[in-house]
């Protein structure tokens, strides 16, 4: 990646993911006078306000008015600016869905949406503030690139890539601190290319965002305790998806689990399911996430545990799926 974006490991544990974003955006603003920033009274919460402190003349806080904000961003983009827009994921994806659809995606406007408080990361706020279907919505819009970074370093990479790549981006990050997956931004991040976090031949766990760290922990534990070789893929880019990496995992391991902080309907698990189904290559398969339910109120880590998308939940599901003897079973009675 371009740019002098190397933070120390000390910094990486001291900064929230949104603070990484704020720093990265300030640097982009220093480098490029056409970068502008918009928020809807969430400058502090999303950390886009850091840009406002550095470049007040290019910072537009529109008040609590998300719909107008996304339309305005389209107007900025069409005039030659590169707007970064931040609000909570649930408002970006749902409240302003029509504006993002019609003004940004339909017109292929160069707008970068950095949506914070993704998934259930604002757990205590309840379902009005959980973004459980934002990935499903955003990935269904033509022209939109959708990225779910695993941590702060990956957020920096995604934000810079968004600037460098023309067209609409939806980048979903979490509230607060993420577990550190990368201690440097220099690990070969590329939009649309999955990253193999752990090599493995027995089973593959596909993850994005906060489940990447959990999947790695689960893989390490299962390697020691059960002698299993668990492959872990960080599929940070939901669209365009790395089809090749998914199909290679299917072919190599024949057992696939997807874990995400999202409803299983329309998210990463659904993307992977679509790829597997269209390839005609069967494999044992499970989607972990919200099972068509709203999430409970609570701490993010507790909700992840309840949903079974933390390391313990992933370990349990891996052991379960390892028991499946799908290749020798001709009996479809229990399937249909």
């Amino acid at each position: 990646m371009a740019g002098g974006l190397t933070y120390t490991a000390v910094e990486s544990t001291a900064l929230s993911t949104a603070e990484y974003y704020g720093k990265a955006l300030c640097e982009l603003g220093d480098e490029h006078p056409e970068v502008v920033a918009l928020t809807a009274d969430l400058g502090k919460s999303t950390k886009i306000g850091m840009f406002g402190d550095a470049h007040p003349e290019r910072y537009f806080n529109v008040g609590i008015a998300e719909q107008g904000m996304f339309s305005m961003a389209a107007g900025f983009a069409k005039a030659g600016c590169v707007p970064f827009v931040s609000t909570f994921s649930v408002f970006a994806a749902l409240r302003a869905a029509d504006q993002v659809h019609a003004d940004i995606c339909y017109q292929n406007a160069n707008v970068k949406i950095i949506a914070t408080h993704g998934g259930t990361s604002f757990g205590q706020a309840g379902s009005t503030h959980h973004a459980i279907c934002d990935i499903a919505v955003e990935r269904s819009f033509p022209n939109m690139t959708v990225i779910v970074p695993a941590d702060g370093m990956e957020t920096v990479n995604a934000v810079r890539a968004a600037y460098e790549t023309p067209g609409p981006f939806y980048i979903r990050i979490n509230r607060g601190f993420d577990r550190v997956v990368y201690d440097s931004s220099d690990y070969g991040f590329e939009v649309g290319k999955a990253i193999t976090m752990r090599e493995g031949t027995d089973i593959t766990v596909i993850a994005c965002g906060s489940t990447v760290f959990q999947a790695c922990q689960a893989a390490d534990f299962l390697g020691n305790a059960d002698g299993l070789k668990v492959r872990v893929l960080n599929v940070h880019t939901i669209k365009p998806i790395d089809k090749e990496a998914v199909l290679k995992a299917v072919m190599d391991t024949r057992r696939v689990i997807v874990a995400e902080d999202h409803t299983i309907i329309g998210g990463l698990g659904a993307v992977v399911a679509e790829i597997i189904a269209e390839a005609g290559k069967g494999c044992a398969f499970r989607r972990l996430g919200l099972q068509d339910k709203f999430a409970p109120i609570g701490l993010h880590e507790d909700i992840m545990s309840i949903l079974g998308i933390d390391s313990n939940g992933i370990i349990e599901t891996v052991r379960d799926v390892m028991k499946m003897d799908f290749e020798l079973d001709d009996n479809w009675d229990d399937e249909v």
Partner: protein
Amino acid sequence: MALTKQEWLALEEKANELRNLCLDTTHWAGSGHIGGGLSVMDMLTILYYRHLNIDPANPTWEDRDRFILSKGHAGIAWAPVLVSKGFNDPEQLKTFNLTNSKMGIHLDAAKVVGVDASTGSLGHGLPIALGSALAARVLGKDYWTYCIMGDGECDEGEIWEAAMAAAHFGATNLIAFVDRNKCMIDGPTEEVMKLEPFADKWRAFGFHVIEVDGQNINELDDAIEYAKTKAAGKPVLILANTIKGAGIAHIEGDYRWHYGAMDEASYKKGKDSLAQYYQARVARAEKEGK
């Protein structure tokens, strides 16, 4: 500078040509949003033939004035203007609404040259225009951004989000219009969802409001000239009182002509009516022009 009588008459001639082209297009397409198309035609005429600093030979010129038709369903009026200005092939009007045509009800910026924003979902145009106006400030450019809204469209909350923001950010390089034809799909605006006191609402949101007869090119011109002086020190809203279907007697003021079909008989009647209307408009310009 106020219009001379000669300039006014020339604009009347152009507006007449465009009204006829709008009716022709509706006839070729079989149907269209002719009511709200004709009510907005004088605004389009004065903007495209007097004020907009644009270059049909260089449609994406970055210093051009921007125009956003927030009431995107008036594409049947806008398309004839864009053709007449030389942005698009006139033959395209004959394909309006047909499968695979570049021109549909709501003009697509990716397909129709000269369109700055693909509108149609109501309420979006004013905030898009505001973004464009604020971008001029960031980029150090002195272009103007114009936006025309429908009156029924102002039921949308997003319009008022943008109105509040336009005043807050002091967007004096934005000139907004409302085509106040007092009709919407299901009936008169005051019956479906009351807008009055409409001008007061805009004033309360921080706009300088100029009320004009939206079917009077001279009044429209004066209002735009005033807005461009920035003397009001705030964004300007030109509240244009118009007549739905202006120029075609048998559809004028009738909300049911929001969208309608023009058969042969109706079309012929419309052409005759437009000719008479033009004579009356010329007579007014002759009498009132200086």
